[in-house]
């Protein structure tokens, strides 16, 4: 289980994340919503160790990984599909997957099982990652994360820039991953409807702090709208409280 406590992260003088805490169990999907600039990407870059100007604790399966480098966090079972995919463009799809498999943990996810879960990758295994479409790149990025055999995988802006058809295909694959129950999933999603239907629980970030947390089925449209835009029930801005 991934447990983060009181994460604070800065960009120089700017406080980007303010005291965020949450947990994710194996087999659970946590949806993370929030407007652009809410601090989502900084939060997950801090959790994975890429953003180092931060405080707070990150534990995975009881092991404190707050102070270790990103590569060691992957070895502990935490993977991330970064915003923008960040593939290795001059390497083939097979090599992109292979390199993660060679440096990640051993487990059920192998080249074969990843291809079974993401069949769209099969015909493009020899293609250079730099030549792929957005949807194909996202599938490779997810496959690369799975190859490290994570207990928890964080997917940042998972459907950003993809066509509706590509998003449908992507979520079909993610549904299989969710059904397998092997991995906890944190999915950062701009599409609120999609985030609510796919996730078991949702948190909403605004100006670096959690403004809403709850089971997806129990949250109302008004709850989410208020938390997302920083409005109180009466329509007043809540963001002043964070200033």
């Amino acid at each position: 289980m991934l447990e983060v406590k009181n994460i604070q992260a800065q960009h120089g003088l700017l406080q980007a994340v303010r005291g965020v805490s949450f947990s994710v169990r194996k087999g659970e999907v946590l949806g993370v919503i929030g407007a652009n600039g809410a601090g989502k990407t900084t939060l997950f870059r801090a959790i994975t160790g890429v953003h180092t100007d931060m405080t707070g604790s990150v534990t995975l399966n009881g092991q404190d990984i707050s102070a270790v480098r990103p590569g060691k966090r992957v070895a502990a079972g935490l993977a991330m599909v970064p915003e923008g995919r960040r593939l290795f463009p001059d390497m083939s799809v097979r090599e992109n997957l292979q390199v993660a498999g060679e440096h990640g943990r051993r487990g059920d996810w192998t080249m074969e099982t990843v291809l079974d879960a993401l069949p769209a990758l099969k015909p493009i295994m020899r293609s250079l990652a730099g030549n792929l479409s957005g949807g194909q790149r996202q599938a490779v990025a997810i496959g690369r994360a799975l190859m490290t055999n994570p207990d928890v995988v964080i997917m940042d802006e998972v459907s950003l820039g993809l066509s509706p058809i590509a998003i449908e295909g992507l979520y079909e694959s993610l549904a299989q991953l969710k059904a397998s129950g092997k991995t906890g999933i944190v999915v950062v999603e701009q599409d609120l409807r999609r985030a609510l239907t796919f996730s078991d629980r949702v948190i909403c970030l605004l100006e670096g702090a959690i403004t809403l947390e709850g089971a997806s089925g129990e949250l109302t449209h008004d709850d989410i709208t208020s938390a997302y835009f920083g409005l109180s029930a009466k329509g007043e801005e809540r963001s002043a409280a964070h200033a």
Partner: protein
Amino acid sequence: MLDAIIQGVLLGGYYAILAAGLSLMLGVTRFLNLAHGDLAVLAAYLIIYLVATWHMPILWAIVLTLPVMGLLGWALQAFLFARTMKGGFLLPLLTTFGLGAVIQNGIYGVFSSDVKSLGNFIGNLAWASWKLPGHISVGKLPVYIFVASVVVLVSLQLLLSFTKLGRAMRATTVDEEAAELSGIDARRIQRATVAIAMVLAGLAGAALAMRSLINPYTGPTQLIFAFEAVVIGGIGSLWGTLAGGIVLGIAQSLGAKISPQLFQLFGHVVFLAVLWWRMKGAGSLGIVNLLRSLKGGRA
């Protein structure tokens, strides 16, 4: 003319070995090591010391020196270069500039400023040659060094393409952060890369000491040649270093054909011409990739 071109091509083999280490390090660690030439000369002095003082066979001296250079590279990256890399663009340059000065003066302090060479220890290989039609004479040693450069580059290509370490090096070259998120320990990969680069510098030092005279202050000139070969061939391109080395070698040989004093000048002029060409945007691909693109391949 043909004679000068052949000599230039063979000289390019030496430049390729020297430049391959510099290029590899620049690609993976984004670190321009201004002490690269001095480290090559240091390796040359170690080999000369083992051969001259301990009467060790030259091949054994090289075999013993290369792992020492690799360990030195590992240690330099772990304890010096990695720290300076956090300090922005200028600090690594100043640090390696200072390291180069320390190596030069260290060699001077231990071995004096007398010129040295391995030429005295390799028998008739230093001057043996094959006679080709047209009164062209091709030295055996330059041919062997050129063959060694091709073997080195093929080995590096195989390492980068087909090994776990090589794939990790390529991934780290492209995107260190994404490499870390794929489970790669980028710091370890960078140490391994610098170790390999130093082994290549050591090999280049051995070749240099066999084919010419060296002194403690030979390193900076070798760095310039290596850097010119890397830039001409395209930064980060393995085979580009051979192409760049050959272009540089031919330019120098043709310059020397006109006048011995023009040997270096012609190489520098070609280097500047390539830079000017790139500033116009035409040559940003590097020679190897440019040839590929002209053939319709992927740049």
